[in-house]
């Protein structure tokens, strides 16, 4: 991993910071006495690293508020952290400061079955919530592939999605209440268990703000009835072109499946080696499609999807016959990123979005980028909503510049196709310099107004989302050339 050059802020650091934090919260909640203890907090799921000046493990909202007041008074940046699975460097203290780990705030506070809501702490692991809700026939819809590790706080901060958010909505569609702590230590409760509130939708603005508007300390989410049944289809195609044409055809036909995921041959090879999900290795593209809900009519829907796939050249069509078979198909998809280790020591995952009709041509661009840079790129992604995840494989940190260049070319193609720089992984410190590709100065100024209202001191996760003069200068030169 590359140690990113930190743009340090004024404010206290070192001994005075550690001593001050220990006085404030006690030694059991502060890490930093021994600098080597900080090392595990210097990276997340992406490729950049930076060492925090200290790490704090709060027990409750009061701890978080006290910490924020202290940091505010001393001009210290405050960087929230969930499980560190983020893929855009969101939890990396690029401007120094205190990392707040929510590992000790991981409880379900209330399972409110009558209202179909759960009130949880931000450190709760995503899957634990759905596991706890299942006996009530309910679940939390957003199911990122990292759901065994990532936290609800991280999901809220990134507005995370997952395979099943195609039909049922991403995190923002499932949050009704938040308790947040602003960077000056003010505790604010927003919403609750009702769907609408009076005044502006601050919850809507906060979800997806990547820790830059404040810290989430409590979350109220909607729980959704579990589907009665599902049909899961695997379709294998000779080429990715045919597979992506099928996706467009399914969407255009008026069907709204619960999930449509695509995977290319390179990804399939890795997944098969790691998980043994039973995907055909000779296919150029593999499509996973699921319909769910009431049992009635599901077979008919599945048949229509299969027919569309067949018309588009599918050579293998398989419908999961048992729960186990379905779970294996999904295990392959959800384990895909982790499986990349079978192909190369490192990968860099991109997260562009395109209008669904542009899938075939943008995927061709991705493969041209791969050839041009001599880098292998695997594709495994949420095809139903046009959310690409090209995984650029590499083995040596010296290749990183080339890897970034390839990533940027792909993102540029996505934006030029009318899409977005990121569909679910966030901007973080990885794409903040690219924001002007997608947004004009006026558009960014609109976001700035929001930032200023929540965090006038710019201490909440600084150096993220917005282009920073110091780190983006090089990119701007590059872009204007």
């Amino acid at each position: 991993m590359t140690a990113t050059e930190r743009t340090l802020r004024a404010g206290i650091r070192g001994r005075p910071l550690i001593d001050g934090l220990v006085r404030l919260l006690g030694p059991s909640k502060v890490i930093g006495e021994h600098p080597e203890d900080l090392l595990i907090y210097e990276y997340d799921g992406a490729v950049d690293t930076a060492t925090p000046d200290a790490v704090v493990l709060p027990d409750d909202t009061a701890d978080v508020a006290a910490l924020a007041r202290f940091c505010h008074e001393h001009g210290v940046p405050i960087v929230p952290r969930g499980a560190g699975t983020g893929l855009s460097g969101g939890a990396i203290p690029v401007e120094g400061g205190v990392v707040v780990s929510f590992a000790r705030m991981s409880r379900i506070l209330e399972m409110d079955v009558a209202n179909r809501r759960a009130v949880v702490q931000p450190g709760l692991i995503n899957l634990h919530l759905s596991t706890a809700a299942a006996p009530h026939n309910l679940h939390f819809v957003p199911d990122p592939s990292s759901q065994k590790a990532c936290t609800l706080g991280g999901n809220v901060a990134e507005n995370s999605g997952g395979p099943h958010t195609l039909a049922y909505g991403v995190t923002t569609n499932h949050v009704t209440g938040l308790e947040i702590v602003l960077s000056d230590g003010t505790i604010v409760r927003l919403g609750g268990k009702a769907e609408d509130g009076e005044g502006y939708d601050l919850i809507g603005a906060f979800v997806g703000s990547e820790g830059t508007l404040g810290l989430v300390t409590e979350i109220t989410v909607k729980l959704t009835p579990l589907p009665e049944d599902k049909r899961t289809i695997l379709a294998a195609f000779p080429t990715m072109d045919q597979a992506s044409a099928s996706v467009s055809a399914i969407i255009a036909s008026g069907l709204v499946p619960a999930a449509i995921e695509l995977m290319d041959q390179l990804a399939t090879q890795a997944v098969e080696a790691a998980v043994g999900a039973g995907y055909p290795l000779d296919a150029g593209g593999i499509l996973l499609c699921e319909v769910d809900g009431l049992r009635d009519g599901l077979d008919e829907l599945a048949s229509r999807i299969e027919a569309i796939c067949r018309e588009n050249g599918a050579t293998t069509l398989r419908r999961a016959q048992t729960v186990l078979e379905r779970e294996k198909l999904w295990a392959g998809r959800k384990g895909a990123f982790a499986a990349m280790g079978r192909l190369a020591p490192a990968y860099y995952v991109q997260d562009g979005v395109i209008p669904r009709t542009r899938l075939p041509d943008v995927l061709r661009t991705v493969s041209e980028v791969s050839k041009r840079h001599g880098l292998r790129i695997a594709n495994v992604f949420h095809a139903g909503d046009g959310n690409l995840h090209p995984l650029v494989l590499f083995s040596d940190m010296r290749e990183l510049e080339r890897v970034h260049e390839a990533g940027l070319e792909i993102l540029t193609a996505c934006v030029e196709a009318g899409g977005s720089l990121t569909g679910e992984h966030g901007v973080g410190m990885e794409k903040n310099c690219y924001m002007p590709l997608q947004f004009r100065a006026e558009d960014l100024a609109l976001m700035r107004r929001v930032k200023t209202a929540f965090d006038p001191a710019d201490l909440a996760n600084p150096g993220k989302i917005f282009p920073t003069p110091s780190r983006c200068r090089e990119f701007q030169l590059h872009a204007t050339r």
Partner: protein
Amino acid sequence: MSLDRNETATVERLRPADARTCADILRRAGEARQTVRVRGGGTKEYLGDPRPTDLVLETTSLGGIVEHVPADLTVTVGAGTRFRELEDALARAGQMLALDPPHADAATIGGIVAANSSGFRRARYGGVRDLLIGTRCALVDGTVASAGGRVVKNVAGYDVNKLLIGSFGTLAVITECTFKVTPLPVATAGLRARFRRAADAYAAADLVARTPARPAALAIDGRARDAWELVVLAEGEPAAVDRAIAIAADAASARGRAERGDVTAALTALRELPASADGVLVRASLPPAAQTAFAEAAMRLEGFMRLVSDAASGIVRVEVRGDDDVLVAAADSLLADARVCGGSARVERRPDRLRARVEAWGDGDVPGLFLMRRLKDAFDPNGILEPGRSVVS
């Protein structure tokens, strides 16, 4: 209406033809410290506590479909477009914007977004906040800015769209919106069930909401203490629609009398509540399970006329009629009850003569209000946009 000043000739009415002109108007108004009302179809003029303004900016010239790519299931449309017009255009492509707002003939897209106006269909498809993916707006500093985009998934930067939804024109003038659209349902079916007790109607609705039936409407209509009706609409694939209605019939039959049939007209009538501007109309948003207690308190109020609720989403509207004291007491009581139930409420309609006695938001104690005020200051520092329209301004 108390907005009479706006009806007189001294009020300047402007009808910009594009976002740029709109922003220029706002900039000049800001420099001159002139207040501005934003008017689409004029179907929601009674909402909030609006005060007369120097200018009225009409959005009706900002109309028309900008881009509709059926295969992408997205549409971009000018804010002044009438909902009905968009609905018809989409229907020709076999699609729909899955909102069913009241006053669909006259209401404009911009007004629907600004007022966060939704109907019963949010039970299945979500409300404005779940369907809007991009906006363009004109700001008082004379800039035109965009939020979001035209793709269905997008987390690049803050979701400023969300702030504009329900902002009632107090932050910026929305000039263009992009939505996710949905294929028209293949099948539709309805069910009406009558109950003697509010609790039974809500219990039946709750049973349905707990299944994966995902009805397209789960509406409750209360006309008297002992006259409650549940109206269920199912949309989707034929087999699933049949089954959803069967589930609803089952849920209802234990306590009431259920009857299948077309519910389109019934739902339209419920959406348009109320016809008269005489009484008080309170809109509450509640945790779903709190609706029964709220309804039982509401039906005991002196002057209670009618209660309509989107039982799946916890949105409840109560109409009360009577003399002034009755209206004031009922409004106070409903606002307080909503809060006790863990929700919030506002007075959507009251006779003009009661504007001083019945505050639209009660004591206006809304969580996070200080942050909302900061946002208002950041967008509209001189407070020229829609004074009094929202609890924030």
